[in-house]
Structures are given as structure tokens and as C-alpha cells.
């Protein structure tokens, strides 16, 4: 390893090679990968942090088939509004992010915990190791929590996060995103992920987003602008549903794949 950071062109070439390999496997009839491969060198931090042995496949037992219970003793309803945590209004474009958490059968994941965290409008996290020289906003922390409703629904009011630079390679920028942490009805459904915004010009360049090598899978992380969720003279609305399939889920050829 040298101290020289790779260029974007070098990272992009690696991204393309991984994408081509996934396409080749899918063209040969392979199931599309649903998750990123843990071994994805274009994201340099993964190189020493992925297991090299195959995971050991086992049946979940009762502990794995259950999940912790969270409720309104754990989360204050006000925690879903990230714009009211300080004495003043945060800077930036106010947005609403709303959707449902569903299981693999389309059933709502009820009364479960969702946690989010994000950068502020300038692309800065309230984290002591974030060295990006963008201003902190004294009126924005960027942390929210909610408990899903009877239909698996959730709603956060927040600020459009900014893109920000990082040191994976030269001139590396993360597309704007909100981190999500989710629990299902089984611990095997546990998920930490990121929601992105439509049309971001940084998508093709970002090795974290591109670590999901199936384009259809990547799209599942993009919130959809929904004008009906926008509030007149107040905020813009994005809709994003999250699916947590249980253990024993298997990929099946879609019945209408021939359409």
C-alpha cells in the first residue's frame, strides 16, 4: 500500500469491473445479489474488514427468530422531527421522509424501532472525527428515532443533507444520504442502510453506493419524490419503503419477468 490515494478514474474502473462481473453472472442465470459483497475493494476500508471464510449457514433458532421490543417508553414521538431539537431553526431545505417498513410478504413491520442519522445541509456530521471544513449548524444534530405505526409507517421531518468529501480516493464525494437503522420482527432482519435522493450526479462515482452491483437493487435505496408528501410553503416530501425479508427467504424468478 502506498500513501498515494487512488484517482477517481482508477476507482471507477474497479467499480465497472465488479459491475461487469455481476452482469455476467446474472446473464448466466445467477440470482441477483441483494446486498453488497463484503469484499469490495473499491471501498478501500473494506479490504481488511471482510471475512475471507464463507459464512457458516445455519438455521435460525428462537433467539434469532425473535427481536427486541421497542415502544413509546423508549422513543418520544418528538424525536422524529430533527428540526425542533434546538432553540432555532436549522439551515437548509426542510424535507419529509416517509414510508413503510414491510416484511417479505408485504406485511407491515409494526411498532419497531427506526433510527436515522445524517449530515447537515453543508455536508457536515456532528462527529469529532468529521474533519470536513463545512460549518456545523448549532440548530441541527442530525439524529432521529421513531417507532413504526400499525401499518409499518414512519415519518421524519428533517433537512436535506449535503454531499460531503471523504478520503477513499482523490476528489471522492458521497452522494447525499440519510443513514437508517432498522429492526424487524426477527433479529435476522436487522438492517443498517442508507437512503439516497433521486438523480444524484454522484451515484456512478461512489464506491459505497456501487457496492450493490445489481442496478435494480441499488434503486431500492433511492427515495422517491412525492409531491403529495410535500407541504405547501413548508417542506418537500420523499417516500421510501423498506423491506426486511425474514430468514429462509429465497430469490425466485419473478412470475412476470417475461413482460
Amino acid at each position, binding site marked *: 500500500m502506498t500513501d498515494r490515494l487512488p484517482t477517481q478514474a482508477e476507482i471507477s474502473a474497479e467499480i465497472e469491473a465488479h459491475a461487469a462481473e455481476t452482469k455476467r453472472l446474472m446473464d448466466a442465470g445467477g440470482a441477483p445479489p*441483494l*446486498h*453488497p459483497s*463484503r469484499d469490495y475493494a473499491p*471501498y478501500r*476500508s473494506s*479490504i*481488511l*474488514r*471482510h*471475512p*475471507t*471464510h464463507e459464512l*457458516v*449457514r*445455519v*438455521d435460525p*433458532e428462537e*433467539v434469532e427468530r425473535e*427481536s*427486541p*421490543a421497542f*415502544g413509546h*417508553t*423508549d422513543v418520544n414521538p418528538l424525536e422524529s422531527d430533527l428540526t425542533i431539537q434546538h432553540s432555532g431553526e436549522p439551515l437548509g431545505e426542510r424535507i419529509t421522509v416517509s414510508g413503510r417498513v414491510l*416484511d*417479505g410478504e*408485504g406485511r407491515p413491520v409494526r411498532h419497531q424501532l427506526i*433510527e436515522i*442519522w445524517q449530515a447537515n445541509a453543508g455536508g457536515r456530521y*456532528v*462527529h469529532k*472525527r468529521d474533519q470536513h471544513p463545512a460549518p456545523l449548524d448549532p440548530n441541527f*444534530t442530525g*439524529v432521529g*428515532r421513531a417507532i413504526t405505526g400499525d401499518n409499518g409507517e414512519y415519518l421524519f421531518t428533517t433537512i436535506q443533507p449535503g454531499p460531503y468529501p471523504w478520503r477513499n480516493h482523490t476528489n471522492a464525494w458521497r452522494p447525499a444520504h440519510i*443513514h437508517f*437503522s432498522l429492526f424487524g420482527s426477527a433479529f*435476522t432482519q*436487522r*438492517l*443498517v*442502510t*442508507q437512503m439516497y435522493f*433521486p438523480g444524484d450526479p454522484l451515484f456512478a462515482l461512489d464506491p*459505497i*453506493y456501487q*457496492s*450493490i452491483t445489481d442496478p435494480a437493487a*441499488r434503486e*431500492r*435505496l*433511492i427515495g422517491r*419524490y412525492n409531491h403529495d408528501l410535500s407541504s405547501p410553503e413548508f417542506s418537500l416530501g420523499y417516500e421510501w419503503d423498506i*423491506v426486511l*425479508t425474514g*430468514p429462509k*427467504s429465497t430469490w425466485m424468478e*419473478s412470475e*412476470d419477468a417475461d413482460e
Partner: protein
Amino acid sequence: MSDSATPAPSRRSYVQTPSQTVGPFFEYALPYDGGPNLVPGHYTNAIRLHGTVYDGDGAPVPDALIEIWQADETGTLVRNLGSLDRDGYTFTGFGRASVNLAGHYTFTTVKPGAVGDSAPYILVTIFARGLMHHLFTRVYFPEDADAHLSDTVLAAVPADRRGTLIAVADGTGPADGTGTDRANAAGAGSYRFDIRLQGDNETVFLDFDA
């Protein structure tokens, strides 16, 4: 796919949402007061579960997040509310701890009773910067060697790697394999469970989606 028309519900709409890394900046968001303390430290049967997370170079990982989920001392999954807002009394079975700058995590909990036919264990979930998708593993206890012989998950693990799932007793308490008294067998013990993401003695990680 990104058509703005509302799609009719169909089987293929319900496909797993992909994972993304927890990234480096979760420290101000996910850890919370009391997260590592499933029981108070002065609780009679409290144990310490701790360890260090290492990368493929054997260097500590200073930005990992560990979650545990377990049964109570009787082997019951209690599913009580209150994991995020501990009252110092109610056991919920869930804990969360971030590692310190030396890659070290610590939980205060109890040794779970056996659930079903398996040997007693704690489910462990690992998140980290650089880790695209969390990893699951299990902590078993060294004094339960007999029960390990009939545990179906341990049986699925190659014998030469099985030891990575068994904690090391490193404190006062039972842990010498002789304890039969329940209170003694669960009391005041300390167990070390290091997690090696890669390389020599790599921890066994489990895939429950087989």
C-alpha cells in the same frame, strides 16, 4: 422502477432492501446511555462480556458497533420494552456498545439460560466502517463444554474453527467448568470474546438466511 405512478401491489415489490455500511459517523447517533448495561453492575449474577475487534492486519478496529441479543437467566426471551431507556431493573435482552479507540467493547449482562436444545449463547451483531453488511456470530461459554457437543450450530462449524465462538473466562466467578450451583455459575464472571474480522483465527460468522 422509479415511475411516479403508484405500482399495484405485487409479489416482486417486496424484495429485500440492500444493506450499506454504518460508516464512520454513527458515534453520536446509535450508542446511548445504558446501552451496554443490560443489568446493573452490582446485580448478583452480572457478568462482563468484553473483547476487542481486530482487522485483517491484527490491528484493533476503533469504529465498530456491537449489539447483543439474548435470553434471560432462565432461557426466556422476555421482549420487555425499555432497551433504550433503561430503568435499572427491567431486563430486555438487548444491548448496544461501540468500541473505544482501542477497539474494545464491554457489556454488563447475565449469562443466558439455554433456549430449546441449544447450549447457552448470546447472539452478537457487528457493524463497522468498511463493513458493507453487518455480521452475526454467537458467544458460547467455556464451562458448557458438554452442552456444546450436542449444539446444532456448533456442529455445523468446522472443528478447527469452533473455538472462535467460545468466550474465554478471564475473571472471577465460575468459569472453571466446575460450577454447578446456578448463582455461582453465573455470578461475577468475566468473559472475553475477541472478534477477528479477517485473517488468522478469523471468527466464525453465521448466515441465518440459508
